[in-house]
């Protein structure tokens, strides 16, 4: 059974433990969108929601900025980004060397603490 409300304590623990990495990633990202071509999902669809930078800014970046205080609906959106829009193939390439897969993995970790996983019994969302 999925929890109804968001338990911020475990998310904040993850954020606190990896604060330096998340903060640096968000600070260094110049929003240049050059990472787009390194994502095969982006290459196939040309939909900017598959851009690696978009994915990490709107998942772990969002969690970090709000210090984990998000609603269930917002957390579900993050779940969709980190599980349905990313396969964590770790092929994304940032010209500055931001470890994007590691940041997305952190967001997945945060989702797991809220019982939010990939829903295997559902069709993937259409891009």
């Amino acid at each position, binding site marked *: 059974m999925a929890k109804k409300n968001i338990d911020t304590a475990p998310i904040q623990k993850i954020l606190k433990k990896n604060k*330096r*990495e998340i903060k*640096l990633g968000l*600070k*260094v*990202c*110049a*929003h*240049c*969108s*050059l990472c*787009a*071509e390194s994502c095969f999902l982006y290459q196939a669809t040309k939909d*900017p*929601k598959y*851009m690696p*930078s*978009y994915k990490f*800014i709107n998942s772990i970046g969002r969690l970090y900025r709000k210090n984990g205080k998000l609603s269930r609906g917002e957390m579900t959106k993050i779940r969709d980004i980190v599980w349905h829009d990313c396969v964590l193939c*770790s*092929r994304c*390439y*940032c*010209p*500055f*060397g*931001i*470890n994007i*897969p*590691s940041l997305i*993995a952190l967001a997945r*970790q945060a989702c797991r603490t809220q019982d939010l996983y990939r829903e295997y019994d559902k069709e993937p969302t259409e891009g």
Partner: protein
Amino acid sequence: MTFQDQILYIVQGPIVWIAFMIFVAGIIGQTFRLSRMIRKNQPLRISDSAKTVKNKKKERWQRWMHHIGQVKTTMIGTSPFLTTVSIIFHICLFITPIFLMGHNVLLKAAIGLSLPSFSEPVSDILTLIVLFCGLFFLLRRLLLRRVRIITTPYDILLLLVVVFPFFTGFLAHHHLLLNYKLMIMLHIISGELILIMIPFSKFFHMIFFFFGRFLIVNEYSLGLPKRNWQFQTRE
């Protein structure tokens, strides 16, 4: 001395040195902070082609051709226009103020040493290149959907902060728009603002770029072109 002269005197003198000190101290401090975050995950592996320099001529040629073939998969290959504009922009951003005649004259007056300078028309052209590249980046931010989706007002502000000293410097030099004193004052203040902002804002990519290039193993540095992020075991 009028009020305007007094302000000009302050921004020309002590504030310049304060800005430079914050710039240098900030960079040293941030570099130190960054270097504490480095962890050694695996030894750096130098690629075979870098190691075997003494191989046969034909083999070497084949290797070169292979590398050239790989260019299309790099960023220069996927976005050639953007990378070219970006490289030109960043080079001009650095060389224009450093080798500008006016700046070097001031440097000579202040510490007795100066760098070689470009002639005035060359500096003008370089400044215009910076301005046009800035305009290109702004339009790209506003018009391309993939960039717009991750753009925040802060990004646009930073872009304006970068081009403002070039814009005001150009106008001041040619005595356009406002009177010279006011324009040069804006130019100096905006230049000082950038210096102070570099270590503490997104401009820090000036330093972080080198960290990323040379300290992350494998394809960012001299290693084999193999993406190999090391995931840390996390609880």
